[in-house]
């Protein structure tokens, strides 16, 4: 790809200056080496340094640069700029309070994540070297542990939009199942009790927006299904 100019329409809001948010039309010239949306954002930032967004690793590992790109949540650093329809419309992740421009307040999201106790609970004295798992048991954790907590999934979920204070959301539930599925964890019952609630788990109506947007290709809906399956197994 050679040099080209790309059109943007970016959500702008600075609560100190702006009465209400507005969309800013701006274009930027890209070099042949600029391939990802984040490259373009870096150029945009050089052109207008008031444009604010989060970024860090620039390779889809830290989950900082999640945003709504042309109506769909994703990571700027993993999105090919040339595959996007122009003008590229950038908005902050939906459903969370905007701090400034593309930066949202993730407090509610992390509150839900913490509520599922995202750590191994095992009261046995730790063995000399490590707690072992069979390869088959370890296999179950694949597709669960890779979550980078970018919030693309939870903020694309209508149930999370309506009840962010009560519904754990796809990211939190994926993490919950990661520990329920872990054979080294001893708190399975407490974890299931913690989720057995019309809001915390059962707000999920399996619409699979989460699966559609996950930049890591994970499947929270499947994990949620497995939690429900375990509850049924425990109940009947």
């Amino acid at each position, binding site marked *: 790809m050679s040099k080209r100019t790309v059109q943007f329409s970016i959500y702008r809001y600075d609560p100190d200056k702006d009465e209400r948010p507005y969309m800013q039309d701006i274009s930027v010239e890209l070099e042949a080496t600029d391939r990802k949306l984040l490259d373009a954002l870096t150029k945009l930032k050089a052109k207008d340094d008031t444009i604010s967004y989060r970024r860090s690793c620039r390779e889809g590992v830290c989950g900082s640069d999640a945003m709504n790109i042309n109506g769909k949540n994703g990571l700027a650093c993993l999105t090919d700029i040339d595959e996007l329809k122009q003008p590229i419309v950038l908005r902050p992740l939906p459903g969370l309070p905007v701090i400034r421009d593309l930066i949202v307040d993730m407090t509610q999201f992390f509150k839900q994540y913490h509520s599922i106790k995202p750590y191994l609970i095992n009261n046995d004295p730790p063995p000399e070297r490590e707690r072992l798992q069979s390869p088959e048991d370890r296999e179950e954790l694949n597709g669960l542990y890779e979550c980078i907590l970018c919030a693309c999934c939870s903020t694309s979920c209508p*149930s999370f939009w*309506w*009840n962010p*204070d*009560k519904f754990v959301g796809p990211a939190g539930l994926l993490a919950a199942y990661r520990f329920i599925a872990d054979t080294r964890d001893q708190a399975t019952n407490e974890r299931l*009790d*913690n989720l*057995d*609630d*019309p*809001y*915390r*788990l*059962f*707000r999920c*109506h399996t619409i699979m927006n989460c699966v559609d947007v996950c930049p890591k290709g994970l499947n929270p809906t499947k994990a949620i299904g497995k939690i*429900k399956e375990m*509850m*049924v197994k425990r*109940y009947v």
Partner: protein
Amino acid sequence: MVNRIVVGAHYGLKDWIAQRATAVVMAVYSVLMLLVLVLVQPGDFESWRGIFAHGFVKFATFLFVVSLFYHAWIGMRDLWMDYIKPTGLRLTLHVLTILALVGYTGWAASILWRL
């Protein structure tokens, strides 16, 4: 009362199972009913009445309407939970929904056994 977020009602699983079970009942009934209609091809009131005169059809139809209303209860409750925030108003709507659906069940039964 302090304004704290409270969750942990410890229900939901039964409703989730019930919603799926009632959906299966409704799906099976719909297919069966379609078959009956294709086979019988009722043209007038008497032939329609003939279908529902069977004890099994009454039984199955009653199960269908009960499933429908139970399914609707969970769906309506979810709607109120998502969109109606004040607890008092939501509780009122819950109760009104239950009353309406219970009433419909009785009404449906009386219609069915009148045929």
